[in-house]
């Protein structure tokens, strides 16, 4: 089984600094790491490979320094990694990003044959859109499931998943090839999926591994180059603000008096009579 994992290098959201005036992030303030949701996609991809055999390829679209996160993916059990990097890819919104990733998957198929399963995290911690998985599926004409909390079972031609619809979790059977965007926590065949901590030997091996670098021209035989990057992006950010400027100054109460104030406030708010 050929598995592709879409991996997004994202800044560590707990460390990144924001430019409060401009509403942008200071890219130098935090290193790129694997989007936390994608760690689960990588782990489950490796588990599926161990179960059914095959290959796991990680694909990222990122600036050249995104290469480091792909090495991290290799240390976590991915066999092969491809970095899509080119100025022509820059400024892409989710439609252009998903198109580029979908075309890279097509290109990959010309080397390794049919890709059976595409895994990714349900969303990224920087973009927060949850668009890319479903859009990649649409570009490739495949079914997909997003917000998947459980990959119940998988065989060479189908996969059963539980997905969050909002009111309930539904069980779906998807025919392969398909796209699965995973949530966290995630279960695989009844057991909790825990992203591994790479061993030192794997980290060292990953350092020497070859990362394939693909540019826009390299995809020209499968893709419409006008659909890459900013040119292929229908949305534009017109302005942005830093949102967590909340400097609420709470009333601070210490000790037992807190109980009385708590009850008093709950009464004032109509929660208690």
């Amino acid at each position: 089984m050929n598995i592709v994992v879409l991996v997004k290098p994202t800044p560590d959201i707990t460390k990144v600094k924001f430019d409060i005036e401009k509403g942008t992030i200071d890219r130098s303030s935090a290193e790129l790491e694997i989007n936390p949701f994608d760690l689960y996609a990588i782990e489950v991809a490796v588990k599926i490979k161990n179960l059914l055999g095959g290959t796991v390829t990680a694909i990222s679209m990122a600036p050249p320094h995104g290469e480091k996160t792909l090495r991290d993916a290799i240390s976590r059990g991915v066999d092969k990694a491809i970095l899509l990097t080119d100025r022509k890819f820059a400024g892409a919104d989710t439609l252009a990003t998903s198109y580029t990733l979908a075309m890279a998957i097509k290109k990959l198929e010309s080397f390794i044959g049919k890709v059976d399963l595409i895994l990714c995290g349900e969303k990224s911690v920087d973009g927060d859109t949850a668009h890319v998985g479903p859009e990649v599926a649409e570009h490739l004409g495949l079914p997909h499931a997003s917000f998947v909390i459980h990959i119940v079972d998988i065989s060479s031609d189908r996969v059963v998943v539980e997905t969050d619809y909002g009111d309930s979790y539904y069980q779906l059977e998807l025919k392969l090839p398909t796209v699965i965007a995973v949530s966290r926590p995630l279960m695989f065949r009844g057991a909790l999926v825990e992203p591994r901590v790479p061993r030192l030997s794997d980290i060292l091996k990953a350092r020497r591994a070859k990362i394939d670098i693909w540019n826009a021209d390299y995809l020209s035989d499968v893709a419409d180059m006008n659909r890459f990057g900013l040119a292929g992006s229908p949305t534009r950010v017109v302005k942005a603000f830093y949102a967590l400027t909340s400097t609420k100054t709470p009333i601070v109460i210490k000790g037992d008096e807190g109980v009385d104030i708590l009850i008093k406030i709950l009464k004032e708010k109509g929660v208690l009579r």
Partner: protein
Amino acid sequence: MSWRGILIYAENYSGKVNSSAFELLGKANELKVRIGGEVSAITLARVDVDAVVQQLISYGADRVVVYKVSSDEELANQLIHRDAIVDAVNMFKPKLVLISATPWGRSLGPRVAAKLGTGITADCLDIYVDEQGDIVQVRPAFTGNIIAHIKTLTNPVITTIRPKVFPIPRPDPSKRGEVVVKNIEELNLSNDARNIKVLGVAKVKEVKLPDVQIIVSVGRGLRSREDIEIFKEFAKMLGGELGCSKPLVDMGWCEKDRQVGFSGNIVRPRIYIACGISGAPQHIAGMKDSEYVIAINIDETAPISKYSDLLIVGNMYEIVEKAIKKISEVKKDMLTT
């Protein structure tokens, strides 16, 4: 033909229209004044088509198109909904398409956008028309740290709107509208839709946290799994529900349905009581828009304090247990007198 009016998608995968559709209708009628054209609604239904139509009209749709499906399995197949929305877009040519940013809507919306080759903006908190007459979509990004204003250059503009942000308008049962009923078989369903088999409901959510008005949340301050019951009891006593932070879900102490935060539920209740939650950015992203926040924390400097209206410094167990005792005494008094 020019792109005019607004199309709202009324989510119905279970046989019941999600009430967030009425919120979209309210907002669409407000935007209609600036955007022009009509407010149309599209939905799918298996039974009770007339009732669904009347409901959508009474909440503000000028016209409704319903695609009739023949089984529950079809109704819960997202790609059939995608085909129906694409058909409705081709029929009405709306300037704007609104979809609720529920998990279902956030999975379906991008399929529609990519199929139509147009832009989509996720999980918006607001949408307005600027001085140039352009539609501007307002959404959080970077785990809620940034608010971005976004324009779409292509047609239609597709936006998913976070539920509970806009109010449900007052229904007008006397309102009349145009109705189109189509059988889903009339559409040439895409092949990918046939590659999904809906096996059924795996589990109904125990609690729908975004709908809850009073949330008592627990975090790492909790000492054991059993102790959850204390805080659950407190939540019930206040007519609310228990929430939790991510670490408790990761440890398997609490169900994911109760998780508040970026990777769980984004909530905006009337009252949010955070017990033993320090306030990691990913938790703040899930609760910062709550109307009134009470933090109970041993550490006065915990980040949560910056997002709280009332901070009670102390042991969360002592404070909550004493509060439970006092409240039940008052209740007992009321019963005896």
